[in-house]
């Protein structure tokens, strides 16, 4: 095993892991606050990839050449539209089921996921879509055939994810909204008695999760350049794995789990086999659930009557 292959896989794993971490936030926050798996979250991420490509195409067709402006405008639009999806999904599929048997919101979530996947397939077609490579700049370390390559987009992914994570942590830890979120997560009924509009907080959590998925969607689309209506499914399960690995309900856990999953997946596909990298990630999920269901940073779950 050459050092440069190892280093290259570590770089790839780091970028992949940041993406998983960003998407995992949506799972972990929603699970923390309403105690359900939002199966449609992966598809929200998929929608953000489509909106990114559409937005870039529209901007370029208007002849906007300034790349930073185009990227920022795309990011803002994608976050807005994706957040609207998060809000609407909660409103349509989950809010009427508050207090329903445990199975009902799960089935509703699966139905929503099918609607989003098939809706995009119907309107955008089943073929793989893409965006042109916009930022070709790369850094190279090493000589000849032994080199490690870091693209500027990969650097952006790590920087932007860390920044958004920091911003989110500040939002949750320091602001009034964050305090309300934490109160609702701890005890929804008590929070409601103390005057917190819990329905609004739950909506906010869905919006935040969707916005984070939108950041991930923009970054992934810039990095890989191609996507289809099915990407949300596998990425969604993996991001959920990251959330479980880090301890579901915990924000730093989601990022940590994402990084661990991304790194181990990249190392696995670099050293063992690329065909089975999804199998590896899913097996990891099963193993974590068996041996450490609370994850790395999670608190043990106490079932109450």
């Amino acid at each position: 095993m050459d050092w440069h292959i190892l280093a290259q896989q570590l770089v790839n794993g780091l970028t992949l892991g940041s993406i998983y971490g960003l998407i995992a936030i949506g799972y972990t926050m929603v699970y923390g606050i309403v105690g359900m798996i939002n199966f449609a979250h992966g598809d929200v991420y998929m929608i953000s990839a489509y909106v990114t490509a559409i937005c870039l195409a529209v901007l370029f067709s208007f002849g906007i050449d300034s790349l930073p402006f185009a990227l920022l405008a795309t990011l803002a639009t994608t976050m807005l539209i994706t957040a609207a999806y998060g809000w609407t999904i909660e409103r349509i599929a989950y809010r009427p089921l508050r207090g329903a048997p445990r199975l009902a919101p799960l089935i509703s979530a699966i139905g929503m996921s099918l609607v989003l996947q098939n809706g995009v397939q119907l309107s955008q077609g089943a073929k793989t879509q893409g965006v042109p490579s916009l930022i070709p700049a790369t850094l190279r370390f090493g000589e000849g055939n032994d080199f490690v390559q870091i693209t500027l987009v990969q650097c952006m992914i790590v920087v932007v994810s860390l920044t958004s994570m920091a911003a989110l942590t500040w939002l949750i830890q320091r602001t009034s909204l964050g305090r309300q979120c934490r109160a609702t997560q701890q005890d929804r009924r008590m929070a409601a008695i103390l005057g917190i509009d819990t329905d609004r907080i739950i909506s906010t959590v869905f919006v935040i999760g969707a916005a984070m998925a939108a950041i991930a969607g923009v970054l992934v689309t810039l990095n890989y350049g191609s996507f289809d209506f099915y990407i949300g499914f596998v990425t969604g399960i993996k991001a959920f794995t990251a959330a479980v690995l880090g301890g579901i309900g915990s924000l730093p856990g989601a990022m940590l789990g994402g990084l661990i999953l991304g790194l181990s997946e990249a190392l696995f596909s670099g050293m063992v086999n690329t065909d089975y990298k999804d199998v590896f990630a899913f097996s990891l999920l099963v193993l974590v659930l068996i041996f450490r269901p609370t994850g790395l940073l999670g608190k043990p779950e106490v079932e109450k009557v």
Partner: protein
Amino acid sequence: MPSTAASPATRGVRWNPVFRQAVLEATAAFALALLLLGPIVGLVLDGYEVKNELQRPLLIAAIIAVGRFLVTLAMHTPTGQAALERFNARRRQPGILVVSISENNRQRWWLLVIVALALSLPFLASKYWLTVLIQAMIYVLLGLGLNIVVGLAGLLDLGYVAFYAVGAYGLALGAQYLDLGFWSALPLAAMLAALFGGILGFPVLRMHGDYLAIVTLGFGEIIRLVLNNWLEFTGGPNGISAPPPQLFGLEFTRTAKDGGMSFHEYFQISYDPLHRFIFIYLALFLIVCLMVVVVTRLRDMPVGRAWEALREDEIACRALGINHVLVKLSAFMMGAMVGGIAGVFFATYQGFINPMSFNFFESALIVAIVVLGGLGSTTGVIVAALVLTVLPELLRAFADYRVFTFGVLMVSMMIWRPRGLIRPRRRAFEVKGLCP
């Protein structure tokens, strides 16, 4: 003038708060729909450019806005208020009808008619409709199997197709490597599927129920990926052929392989390729009938009652000393076994299988069948399976919208009819003179 005198009055009626609220809500719905659907539905990616199809989201948003407007108005009429009241009242009900056994027995003659009809259908149907019927029967079987897991035990299994695949590949690989025939593979593949269910279920079922959903989802993907990637063993995406069925060693081919005898020669009738399908259909039908009897009996037995009790309240059950892991595992393995049996039939009917047949949409379809059938109702599941498999054949033009419709159905069923379209019945034993 009379007209000007009348106008303030009419304006007062027209712009009452209800109307203004309806207009506001309709406008908000229109704006939101436009924001959501505008880019995704209205701007279609074509290479690195977009095609303008903005009339589509405008139309959909307009329909949504008008719908919202009418619904808001209707909610304030007496009829709408009454409907809302009824809806809320129904949600408070437990939703299960208790029927005494004597009442249940009255429906027996109906069953005879249905069975006779189902037995005579294959002899009347064309080849095309025969294959549709077989597919419908396979889905009935899958629905009944998943109904034990999701409907009775309340465990959401989103990778049910994995056990279906284990059954199908059990037959195909068993025939290729171990020289197994249809009838020897049937129990073995079923046991293999149950074993897979046990291995997967045992660790996961100890934990909070939601994890099972995502683990089974991942497991379904693992099975499909392994089948797809393990070229030298499973044939990968190229698929593998599965042996045709036999009846006591009689083959359903024009000329039997050396040493064998074909069905039409033995019975001295002319060869008809439909015989094979009729045989598969009848065998499937028998298995479905057997399943219905077994599930009905199980529901009245302690284990079946424990399944449903665990679904309703796990903590109470554990407090009463029910071993929740073993009870759940029994349901999960039983469901897996039925999935395996359905897989064997699918493989022998197709004659050729590849991993494409076992993707997530297949799992979602089976979940949709169980949900539409009403989570626990055997009759409901059978009807839903027949409707969801036969209806798409009739409505070929809308084939693309199939999955979309299933999704919408699943969400709306959970909101409006969580117990399914047919109300579930629970049998109770009557003691004369005890109940008024």
